[in-house]
């Protein structure tokens, strides 16, 4: 199998005094080009797992392989080149003084030639549709725009894997949808392997596979359709359940027969219209 990420029996704790492991015996295999969503409660260990993949924390046991290469102190910088990360808070990841300076930051770190840098920055800003904002300072950007800049910064580095750690959670609905469609484009058109950590069901439902983390453990690993049949349990798992889904639960409670599979807003409306016509 051409697994781009392979995690074997990974354990980690932030402090030796912690009795419980913050990541406990994680086994995970991600295929190249796959889109994996990670969901779970606040504090369940999602970000910690993402950091472990990027070598930002040092595991106490277990191994991480990225693109066939084992993550060690020596391979660390090489492996980080293959992974791009977009974080939650748009402000706290904006390093540069202006948009183009921020996109270039990662390239500067890699010691890329100036001409090449300019070309890559330009290209990346075009992909996220921010080319007209190249000289803007972060104060003059919305949260969604800042996240697009962060994505451009990742694109310019041409990684294989992109990890989004709740990158849409601080955005307004419009900004959120833009970022989600950008993630989708990156995965489906440009072929990046995507890991998105999220509480957002729209984002999770687009993924090829969803894993659920609780207390530092992977407690579920399934297709999004399967997971979303779980109805009410989703809220326990740590997802914000969307309106059609909640409506379905309420109808069920009132003894109305309803198909079990996942329905988005449109199919919900269709189904409602049809059942009203039938009566």
């Amino acid at each position: 199998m051409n697994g781009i990420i392979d995690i074997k029996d990974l354990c980690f704790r932030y402090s030796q005094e912690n009795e419980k492991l913050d990541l406990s015996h994680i086994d995970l295999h991600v295929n190249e080009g796959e889109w994996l969503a990670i969901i779970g409660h606040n504090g369940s260990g999602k970000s910690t797992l993402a950091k472990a993949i990027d070598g930002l924390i040092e595991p106490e046991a277990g191994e991480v392989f990225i693109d066939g290469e084992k993550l060690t102190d020596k391979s660390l910088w090489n492996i980080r080149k293959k992974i791009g990360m977009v974080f939650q808070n748009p402000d706290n990841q904006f390093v540069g003084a202006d948009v183009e300076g921020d996109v270039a930051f990662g390239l500067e770190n890699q010691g890329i030639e100036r001409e090449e840098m300019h070309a890559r920055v330009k290209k990346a800003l075009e992909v996220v549709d921010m080319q007209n904002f190249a000289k803007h300072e972060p104060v003059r950007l919305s949260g969604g725009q800042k996240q697009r800049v962060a994505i451009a910064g990742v694109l310019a580095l041409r990684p294989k894997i992109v990890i989004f750690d709740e990158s849409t959670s601080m955005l307004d609905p419009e900004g959120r949808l833009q970022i989600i469609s950008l993630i989708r484009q990156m995965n489906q058109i440009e072929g990046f392997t995507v890991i998105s950590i999220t509480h957002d069901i729209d984002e999770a439902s687009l993924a090829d596979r969803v894993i659920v983390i609780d207390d530092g453990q992977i407690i579920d690993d399934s297709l999004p359709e399967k997971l979303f049949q779980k109805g009410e349990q989703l809220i326990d798992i740590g997802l914000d359940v969307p309106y059609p889904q909640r409506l379905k639960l309420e109808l069920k409670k009132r003894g109305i027969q309803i198909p079990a599979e996942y329905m988005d807003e449109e199919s919900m409306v269709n189904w409602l219209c049809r059942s009203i016509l039938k009566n």
Partner: protein
Amino acid sequence: MDKMLLGRYINGDSLIHRMDPRGKLFLSFYFIVIVFLCNNWETYVLMTAMVMLFVKLSDISLGFFIKGVRPLIWLILFTVLLQIFFSSGGHVYWHWGPFTVTDSGMTNGVFVFCRFVLIIFMSTLLTLTTTPIEISDGLELLLKPLTKIKVPVYEIALMLSIALRFVPTLMDETTKIMNAQRARGVNFGEGNLIKQIKSVIPLLIPLFVSSFNRAEDLATAMEARGYHGGEGRTKYRKQEWKRNDTIAVILFVVLTIALVVLRK
């Protein structure tokens, strides 16, 4: 505060704007040094003419420069008064206890005033025509030789540019926290000094906590993007030494010679 730190830069495409930030930085410092060569009317007139020429070339209205003097006006007046009342020599106009007003004291007062204003005009010219990031880049390049004696020039410049970048963010946050604390009944800027100092605490503590969180996030983000110190890094922005920089330098050399000749 907003006005003071930011929005200083005025977008433009004048000869001065287009100068290399390194050139501007260096000449601004150099200017402060040679201002102290002035010690008579001729030299001050020459210096003022030079500054006015640069102001004209920058295409920025004089009003902005005068605004730059305003925050320092009390300091300037205080120094001028010291000169006027405590200098000796020359014709004595007035005398009372330790105070004497002499004609050389008056001239010195005027000279000190001019010196302050000239320095402020010149540094205002630098900040009005150069973006903060250009200044920090320019400083880095100018100070690069210091890396030989193990001064972390690159890190200092990065710190400076990150600090500048976070000023507005933290300012926003301060406003938010102030509003939140006001909603809880804290009064800012009221009551006696002790009360005022006490009211700052509920502002500072959340601000510190959030700054530390931000710093940690930022460090993680930087590391994730491959930051591992200044070594082996390339620079996205280029600073180019151009013809007008060379001309400016020559102008300053001529100016220096003229000052040396004219001073008494």
